[in-house]
C-alpha cells in the first residue's frame, strides 16, 4: 500500500496521522509541501527515522529542488524518486491512499 503526503508536517497533521495508520511494509511518498518532512535536523526527524524501521519512505526530487532543499540532506534511508518513480510506486502498490 502506498500513502501519499502533500502537506508540510509543520503546518498540518497529515503526516502524523498517516504514520499512525500505515502498517509495516507500507510505502509513504512525500511530495509537494510534504517534502519538508524528509530532512535531517528538523523537529520531525526522529518520527521519520523511527518509521523507516518498518516502512519505505520516498521523496519526490522535483518538489525538493523547487523549494531549494538539498537531496544530500535527506534523512538516511529515504529514497528519492522523480515523477516516473512516483508512477512506478503506484504500480507496485495495489492501493494508493492520499492523506490530504
Amino acid at each position, binding site marked *: *500500500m502506498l500513502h501519499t503526503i502533500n502537506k508540510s508536517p509543520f503546518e498540518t497533521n497529515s503526516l502524523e496521522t498517516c504514520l*499512525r495508520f500505515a502498517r509495516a511494509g507500507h510505502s509513504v511518498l512525500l511530495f509537494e509541501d510534504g517534502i519538508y518532512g524528509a530532512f535531517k535536523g528538523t523537529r520531525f526527524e526522529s518520527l521519520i527515522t523511527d518509521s523507516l524501521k518498518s516502512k519505505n519512505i520516498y521523496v519526490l526530487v522535483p518538489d525538493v529542488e523547487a523549494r531549494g532543499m538539498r537531496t544530500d540532506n535527506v534523512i538516511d534511508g529515504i529514497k528519492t524518486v522523480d515523477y516516473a518513480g512516483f508512477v512506478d510506486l503506484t504500480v507496485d502498490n495495489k*492501493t*494508493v491512499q*492520499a*492523506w*490530504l
Partner: protein
Amino acid sequence: MEDEVIKKFLYVNRKAPYGTIYALESLEVVLIGAAFDQDVSLAFIDDGVYQLKKDQKTSVDSGAGMKNFSKTYLALGDYDVNKIYVDKASLDERGLTADDLMELVYEDEDDDYKEKSSISIVNQEEIAQLMEQQDVVLSF
C-alpha cells in the same frame, strides 16, 4: 460480465464540515456511488469525526448562512451504506463520545430487517486493517 465487478471502496473523511466543502461533496460521491453496488465503507478520522456530530444547526437564511447537509448522513442506511468506521482516538482527543454522534442506522435484511447501528467506533489497528483491504481509497 464487467458490470459484476465488485470492488472495495473506502471513503476517508478527515475534514470538519462547513469550514470547507469537502465533507458535503464527499457525501455526494458516496450517494451516487451507492447506485453502483460496490462494497462501500466510510472512515472518519481526525476532524472528519465532526462531520457526524449531532444537532448541526444552520440554514441558508440564518446562522452561518450555509445549507445544513447533516441530515443526508441519516439517509446512508437506506442506500445500503452501513459500514461506517469512526476512529476512537480522534473522538477521544476532541472530548467526544458515541453519544455526540448522529444515530446512523440501517435495516439488516439478513436478520429480519432489524434496525442496527451503522457506526462502529474502532481503534487504530482496525482502521489500518480496513485500509489495507481496499481496492479504491477516495480521500476528501
